[in-house]
């Protein structure tokens, strides 16, 4: 019985962990903090998990746990951090939840649109988001001003986002 539970949990966890992490990152908006919240969520999910007949509920159950942890995260931050007003946070939470429902479509659109960027644009986004380099580090690395790097990333990503929206609407 315990083995069945483990098997089911880890299969579902592996299946949905990227969506859960995306949801957390969209709401926390800081990669280090998102990883911490994800760790906490994984522990709680494992502790509270019971075998489910309806596997499709796993994602919503996980997101509910993540949502509580995100709330706790903001409660801890309240003292000296810049936090959006409650109304906006709740709006972001609602919209990010609905985005997660179409996560696979979004990833497919993103892949398609990434292929339309040229090599240097892809390389720049990879440095920034995949390798996690800060703009300052990239600017040092390529010996260009930080302002120039901000501009290039902003233009590239804006084009990418527009392409994704168009692609998803088709």
């Amino acid at each position: 019985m315990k083995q069945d539970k483990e098997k089911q949990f880890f299969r579902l966890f592996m299946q949905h962990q990227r969506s859960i992490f995306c949801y957390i990152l969209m709401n926390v908006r800081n990669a280090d903090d998102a990883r911490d919240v994800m760790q906490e969520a994984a522990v709680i999910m494992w502790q509270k998990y019971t075998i489910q007949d309806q596997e499709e509920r796993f994602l919503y159950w996980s997101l509910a746990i993540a949502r509580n942890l995100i709330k706790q995260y903001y409660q801890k931050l309240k003292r000296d951090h810049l936090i959006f007003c409650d109304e906006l946070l709740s709006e972001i939470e609602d919209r990010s939840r609905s985005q997660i429902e179409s996560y696979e479509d979004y990833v497919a659109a993103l892949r398609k649109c990434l292929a339309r960027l040229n090599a240097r644009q892809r390389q720049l986004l990879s440095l920034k988001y995949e390798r996690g380099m800060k703009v300052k580090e990239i600017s040092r690395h390529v010996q260009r001003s930080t302002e120039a790097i901000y501009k290039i990333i902003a233009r590239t990503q804006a084009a990418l986002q527009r392409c994704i929206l168009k692609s998803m609407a088709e």
Partner: protein
Amino acid sequence: MDKYEQIITLVIKEHEGMLTAEEFRILQAYLRGDSQLLDFYIHCYLTISVFNKSYDFSDRIAWSEAYLVNIDGPFWKELADLEKAAPSFEQPTPPDDDKPAVGKLAVEKPPHKIKKSSVLTVVLSSAALLFFLMLIRFLPAPPVRTPIGRVLQLNNAVFPKPVKMLAEGQDVFAGPLSLTAGSGLIELDTGTRVFLTAPIEIDLHDKSLVYLSQGKLLAQVPPTGLGFTISTPQGSVVVYGTEFTLAVDPDGWTRVEVFKGRVDLRSKSGSPVNAISQLVAAGQVGTVDASGSIAVKDKRTSPAPVRRSLERVWAGTQPRSLWNDPVNWENEEMPDAYSPAFLQHRPVRSICVIDDTHTGQHRARAEYVNIGLWGYGCLEMTGGELETEEIWVGRRDGGDGVFTLSGGTVFITQKRDGIIIGKSWEKKAGHGVMNFKGGTILFEDSRDNMILGWGYPAQGVLNMEGGRLSIPNQLILGAVSDEIQSPEPLLGTGYVNIKAGVLRAGSLLIRQGRVDIQDGVLVLKGDVRQPLQEYVRTNRLTANNGAGTLRFDYDSDADETRVRAEGLP
């Protein structure tokens, strides 16, 4: 820059934690007033999170296809192209009125009288000049060779004739390089270090591209060496990470073993854009066979194709031996900023000591330090200086480490994992103990943590016996295993015993384990009395092994909470 580009700029700043209060106010105003912008903002983070590989265990191979296009040159050239393609910028010219007035002086020229001999001289001189110009034009220009790196170290290296011998400190130029015996360490101008072991044949194209036709090499690539590529007859390796070995076997296979970070292993079959490619992560071995097929396996299930060479292994023979004496290291090779120190006392138990003599140019240095890796290891620091990026105490299968600090200064120089005490691997425990009695640990990055017990069944213990220890970010007791293969979030366990002294941390996270306070003080940032009470209620924070009570004081001026024990044990 339009509104959408402004939003992205603000998102980047927010994501990096660089958003100012003013920029935050602007961002909030944008998002509250426009639901389209809010959707755009959320999409930006969705894109960022898809790029983020932290939890990308399933579709990374598919992702690699997006990055297969070869980059022809260093990245800055690509950006220079972007700048070239930018709209031209007209340099304003000052109006004529601003030009300085320059007067002409009228001079009457004397009449010229041309001699025949002068004409002849001019004709002959012109012919000679034309001849020299033609000579320069059609003769091959002498090659201008600029060095692309230099030789750092040679160990009994033998170069095949008629190739010119290299010497330590000598510049290295583009071209073929072979070794028939011994080994050598080359540093390219990008900071990439390549360790060559004979027999080997390579061709240095430039500082970012090396062709390995036969043999094996080990490469350490710093961030400045991003994009470093080693090409082989069967494929190529493009670096995303920092340390790997690559071998081309006589049987026509290319093998890469990654120790840190990851590399993109590409087969030469297929077009450059649609080539077969797989990421090889730390702890994995990737192969490309003669037919161009790629396979990636865990290191433990693959035969080790090459010997790892850059770690420096402790070989002290006395009960207490000094770090900065080369005889105490295997092959008398001491660790430095580019090589890790492995304190694994085999076959003799010998404590590695760092004392007052380890200062200035004799400062102990290592890329990172493993105290107790697959066995017992012990480091005692009574003075002097140790400079490293991270310290692991008790790591992996059977790792049993003790680190005692009573004096001197430890410099943790980069944001990596900080100090980790007790780390498991494949569910096999590492046990670590740190005894802090004095001295100083300076973390250069404010995000550095101390983790006690990382992954089940690892255990980490911190004994505070005096002095002051300040952890800039989190003190974490019990972290979940980070192994990709781990089927479950397995927690390690951490224990902190504050017998004396002051332990200060940005925050405290007890997932599994306990903090017990006897005679010392625990100081945490902010007013955290309420969450600490929860730890007390669940026996994760105790006084005198549960026999005493705890007192919590919040100092609003310093914005910190101090915890002390009350009552006799």
